[in-house]
């Protein structure tokens, strides 16, 4: 007897040699998501990523709150990179409401964003280490991350969810002797970062597990629409900070890190090298920053946007984050759409994992810089 199935559904044929594994949804490392993996012996036959377990409705929530009240909840998707996820929102709202940002505030924002990028990458690197069974590489970045958390805490007053960037500038000026303290800690961190090289990146055990696995070619990287470090590890020179500079990035001295290989090793190394560039940006910004001046433009209470729409994007630790904001003469936005790097990089997973050994799965998965909470928003 054949039963009629609803359109779009089909019955899966079961092969005795193929086994199905569910990786997740109980927190495979960074948040709730599931990979449905089919294995033949030790080799992956197919992988089906299944996101959506941590959808929080950030976009809908943004429609009921005014432009300032939106700040605390919009940084929740990536609390480790909270300045960067707020950045495009602030840029967009400034454009909608026609707000000028003081010069000093622009530099402070760049410093906050770069400190936060380091916090994110260090956290990511710590998890990368423990995913590959390297517990030193878990302890070191997790400890060194404290240097940056300390700096951002002095700046903004909170350790993780800073709510520091606002439309019109930043919440408060830098504390006294911040420049000196920041320079000292960033310089120490650069020295420390060089030690990671021998213990992790030149370690033959890491190389054996990551080199040549999960190769994403340049054309595939572009075709699949990847972004951020994944794109740059496949040899595409694209960084929003360089290509569409926002705030003061065009005045600052840094390079885009590009690697040609496109394998897991390159994807693990690009964010690491980017931390050196972030330190360079921070030091340069501290040097070029105006030493005094206003840091926040005073807004009217409950500012209203006209009948308008904007799209602004920035480069975060996980790739480009874009905000599309529509306003309709009300204090609340009419629609906020967030486009995040994590979600766009997820699509590579079935392609990269096909034919890989199951043991290489964590390296490929985490190398994609995928953050479930951000992807589900």
């Amino acid at each position: 007897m054949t039963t009629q199935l609803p359109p779009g559904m089909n019955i899966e044929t079961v092969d005795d040699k193929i086994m199905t594994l569910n990786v997740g949804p109980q927190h495979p490392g960074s948040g709730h998501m599931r990979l449905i993996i089919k294995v033949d012996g030790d080799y992956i036959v197919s992988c089906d990523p299944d996101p959506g377990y941590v959808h929080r409705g950030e976009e809908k929530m943004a429609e009921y709150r005014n432009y300032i009240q939106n700040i605390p909840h919009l940084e929740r998707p990536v609390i480790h990179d909270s300045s960067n996820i707020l950045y495009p929102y602030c840029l967009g709202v400034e454009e909608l409401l026609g707000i000028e940002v003081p010069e000093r505030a622009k530099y402070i924002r760049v410093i906050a964003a770069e400190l936060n990028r380091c916090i994110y990458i260090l956290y990511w690197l710590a998890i990368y280490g423990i995913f590959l069974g390297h517990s030193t590489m878990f302890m070191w970045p997790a400890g060194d991350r404290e240097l940056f958390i300390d700096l951002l805490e002095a700046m903004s007053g909170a350790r993780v969810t800073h709510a520091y960037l606002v439309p019109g500038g930043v919440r408060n000026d830098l504390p006294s002797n911040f420049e000196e303290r920041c320079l000292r800690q960033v310089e120490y961190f650069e020295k420390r970062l060089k030690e990671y090289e021998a213990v992790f990146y030149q370690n033959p055990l890491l190389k054996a597990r990551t080199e040549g696995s999960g190769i994403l070619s340049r054309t595939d990287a572009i075709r699949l629409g990847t972004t951020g470090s994944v794109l740059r590890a496949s040899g595409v020179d694209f960084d929003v900070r360089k290509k569409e500079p926002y705030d003061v990035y065009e005045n600052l001295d840094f390079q885009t890190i590009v690697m040609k290989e496109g394998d897991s090793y390159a994807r693990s190394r690009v964010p690491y090298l980017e931390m050196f560039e972030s330190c360079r940006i921070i030091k340069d910004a501290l040097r070029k920053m105006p030493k005094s001046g206003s840091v926040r433009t005073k807004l009217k209470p409950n500012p209203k946007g006209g009948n308008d729409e904007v799209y602004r994007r920035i480069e975060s630790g996980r790739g480009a984050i874009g905000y599309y904001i529509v306003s309709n003469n009300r204090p609340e936005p009419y629609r906020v759409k967030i486009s995040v790097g994590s979600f766009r990089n997820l699509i590579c997973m079935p392609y990269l994992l096909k034919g890989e050994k199951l043991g290489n799965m964590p390296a490929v998965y985490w190398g994609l810089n995928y953050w479930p909470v951000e992807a589900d928003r």
Partner: protein
Amino acid sequence: MSNVIGIIRALNSGVKHLAVKRFTLRYPEQKLKFVGDGFQFNPETGVGIAGLRGRHILFHEHCTGCQLCSVACEGIAEAISMVKVHETWKHNKKAIMPQIDYGKCVFCGLCVDACPFYALYMTNDYELSSFTKSALIYTPAQLAIKPKISQDVEIKIDDRGASHG
């Protein structure tokens, strides 16, 4: 062969750290020092003053009961409710003041930004845990108390590495 050298190098860089000071902060024996007395806000310039965003402090002599802090928090955490106080202040006819539920507060400090009368600031006190939910609700009288804190440890950096004190 190069693999063996690589592994020895990796081990060596770890072993060197046996002689390096420990970075761990021994909380609660040690507590980190913060800048200033907590996050404050100057309504005239519209700019805040850097500091830790911990528990709030309410200055009864300044609070007018205007409810702006509670309105600001409505879209964020709904942590502030206005309650009656048994005090008579000329500038606070309705005799209402904010009461904050720290079970809900996310320490964003936007209520401090909203207060136009220099009445609501934040302090360096972050140790708010309690055994009951009701103890997390701070009444205006509790919010007026200045916290007693001893936080003095800073990150120190020398040639033997970074450490906490």
